C-alpha cells in the first residue's frame, strides 16, 4: 500500500505515523520475550545484564542455567510431568472437541447455541473460579492430587480451542462429500476417517496445538487440582520465582518460546498444505 501521489500533507503524516505506531505495538509485544533469551545465557545468577555481557565478553555468557535445567531433579520431574500431562490432555480435548464440533455443525441440533456456550465457557470463566470449582469437585470424587485429575482439568480447558478451530474448518466443509462417500457404500465411521477427518485435519491440528500449549503453560488449575507429584514446568517456574529466583527460569522460558515458535511454524505449514490441496492457491 504505497502512498498515492495525490496524498494530502495530513495523509502523508498519518501514513508514517501509522507505521511508527505499528512498530511500537510490535516492540511492546516482542521485547519482553526477546530480552529473556540473552539473559538466559547469563554467567552470573542475576536477572540483569552484567557489564561483561554488555561488552559482549564471552566470559559473561554461559550455558550453566541450561545445564542446571537438564540436571536438577526438580526441573526434570517438572519436565516429565508436563510432557506426560499435556499430550494426554490434548488427546482427550481433541477427541471430544472434534466430535462436539461435528455434532454441533449438523443441521437440526436443538439448543445448539446454548450447548456451544457451555462448552466454550472454560475459556471465558476466570481461571481461578474454574480451578476452585474443580478442586472441590475433584476432591469429592477422589481425583484431586492425581495424574488423571490434572489431565481431565486441562482437557476441559483445551476443549474450547478445539471446538472453535474445528467449527471454523467445518464451515467450509462441503456436506455433499460425506453424501458422496455414503452413496459409494462407505459407512459413517469409514466416511469420517477417510473423507471428513483428512479434510478438517488442519483445524483439528491447530486445535490440538492450542490445547497442548494451554496445558503446557497452565499454572493456576494445576496448583489447585495437582499435588507435589504433578508439579509441572509452569508450577516449578512459579515456585522458582517465589523461592529462589534462579535464572534457570529464563533458560526454561527460552526453551518454551522456542517450542511455541516451532509449533506455530508447523501450524502454518499445515495450513498452506491444505490450501494447496483444496486448490485455493497455486501449488
Amino acid at each position, binding site marked *: 500500500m504505497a502512498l498515492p501521489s495525490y496524498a494530502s500533507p495530513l495523509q502523508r503524516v498519518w501514513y508514517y505515523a501509522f507505521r511508527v505506531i505499528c512498530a511500537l505495538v510490535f516492540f511492546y509485544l516482542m521485547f519482553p520475550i526477546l530480552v529473556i533469551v540473552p539473559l538466559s545465557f547469563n554467567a552470573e545468577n542475576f536477572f540483569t545484564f552484567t557489564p561483561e555481557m554488555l561488552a559482549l565478553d564471552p566470559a559473561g555468557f554461559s550455558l550453566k542455567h541450561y545445564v542446571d535445567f537438564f540436571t536438577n531433579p526438580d526441573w526434570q520431574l517438572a519436565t516429565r510431568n508436563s510432557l506426560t500431562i499435556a499430550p494426554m490432555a490434548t488427546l482427550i480435548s481433541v477427541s471430544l472437541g472434534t466430535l462436539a464440533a461435528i455434532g454441533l455443525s449438523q443441521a437440526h441440533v436443538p439448543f445448539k447455541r446454548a450447548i456451544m456456550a457451555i462448552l466454550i465457557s472454560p475459556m471465558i470463566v476466570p481461571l481461578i473460579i474454574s480451578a476452585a470449582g474443580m478442586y472441590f469437585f475433584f476432591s469429592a470424587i477422589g481425583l484431586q492430587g492425581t495424574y488423571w485429575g490434572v489431565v481431565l482439568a486441562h482437557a476441559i480447558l483445551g476443549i474450547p480451542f478445539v471446538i472453535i478451530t474445528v467449527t471454523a474448518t467445518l464451515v467450509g466443509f462441503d456436506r*455433499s462429500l460425506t453424501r*458422496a462417500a*455414503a*452413496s*459409494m457404500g462407505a*459407512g459413517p465411521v469409514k466416511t469420517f476417517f477417510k473423507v471428513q477427518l483428512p479434510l478438517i485435519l488442519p483445524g483439528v491440528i491447530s486445535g490440538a496445538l492450542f490445547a497442548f500449549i494451554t496445558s503446557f503453560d497452565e499454572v493456576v488449575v494445576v496448583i489447585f487440582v495437582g499435588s507435589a507429584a504433578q508439579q509441572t514446568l509452569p508450577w516449578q517456574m512459579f515456585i522458582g520465582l517465589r523461592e529462589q529466583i534462579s535464572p534457570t527460569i529464563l533458560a526454561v522460558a527460552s526453551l518454551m518460546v522456542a517450542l511455541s515458535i516451532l509449533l506455530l511454524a508447523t501450524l502454518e505449514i499445515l495450513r498452506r498444505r491444505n490450501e494447496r*490441496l483444496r*486448490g485455493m492457491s497455486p501449488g
Partner: protein
Amino acid sequence: MSETRTDGFVVFDRVQKSYDGETLVVKDLNLSMPKGEFLTMLGPSGSGKTTCLMMLAGFETATHGEILLDHKPINNIPPHKRGIGMVFQNYALFPHMTIAENLSFPLEVRGMGKSEREGKIRRALDMVQMGEFGNRRPAQLSGGQQQRVALARALVFEPELVLMDEPLGALDKQLREHMQFEITNLAHTLGITTVYVTHDQTEALTMSDRVAVFNDGRIQQLAPPEDLYERPENSFVAQFIGENNKLEGVVETINGDRCTVRLDDGTVIDAKPVNVTKAGERTRVSIRPERVESNPDRLASDAHLVDAEVLEFIYMGDTFRVRLRVAGNDDFIMKYRNAQDQGRYSPGQKIQIGWQAEDCRALDA
C-alpha cells in the same frame, strides 16, 4: 401404461415428505420406472424434485409411503447400503485424493483387490476419456473434466441405478450440450437406470426416455418428451415446457375431440378439449407459436379465423417471430420459418390467424 403401481425397478408408492410436520414438500408421489429407463425429474425450484431424489438416495426419509428398489422396500436401508451411484451438482470429488484414488474409494469400500480395482478404474476413466488424468487432483481439472470424473466415479462400482442432481448446472452451454449427449449415450450403452434432476427443460427433453414434470409437490405429467411438448395435460405443463400462447375463455360447445371456446372478448376459436368436460366451463387454451398459421389456405375450410394486429416483427435468422395482439392479449407470439414463400409483416398490419383444432388445447383455467 400397463404396469401396476408396485411393478417396476424403482417405485414410489404414495410417498409424502414434510420437513416441519406441517407443510408437505412432496404430496402423494406415485412413480414406477422400468429397468434401464432414463427418467428426468423436471420442475421449478421448490417443486419437490430434489427432495424425491434425496429420498431415493436415502439422505432424506419419506414421511409417508414406500419407496421400492428392485421390488424391495428401501425406506429403512441407510444410504451406504443402497448401492445407488450418485452424481452431484458440485461434483463432490474428494479434494485430498487423486482422481484414481477417488475412483478407487467405492471399490476399496467393497473390499476389492488391488489388481481388480486398477482394471476397473482404468476402464471407467477411459469411458469418459479421462484416462491420462488418474494422477491429478480434482483442483487441477476444469469443471467439465471434474464432471466426467464424477460420472466415472458414480459408475465404477457398476450400480444398477444412478442418480444425477443437476450435474451439468455449473457448465457453460457448449460443454453442457456435449455432456448431455455423452451421459445419455453412456446410460444407454451400459443399460443403467437413471434418475436425472434438472430445471432445464431443453436438457430434460433431449436426454430422457420419460420426463416427470414436478410442481407443488406433485407430478403434473409423466410422459415421453414428445407427448409432453405436443400434448400437455394441464396448463402448468403447457406453460412450463417450451413457449406457449395462452388465451382465456369459456367452453361453448363440445363435440368429441373438438370444442369451440368463446374468448373473453367474444371471439370464437377451435380447440381440442383436454381437461374440460362440459360447455360453460372456464378454460385456458394453449397454442404453440410455431403452430399458429397466418395463411388461411392451409387451414380447414370450416376453421374459425381470429383477427390479430401485428405489434412487432422480429427477425431471428432461421425463423421470424411476430408479436400479435389477439383477443386483448398483447403477447401472442407467432413463429414461422424463414422461407421463400413466407411473407413478412410490419407493425400495425391487421391479419387473420388460425390453427388446427388439435394444436390448440383447452386446459384447466
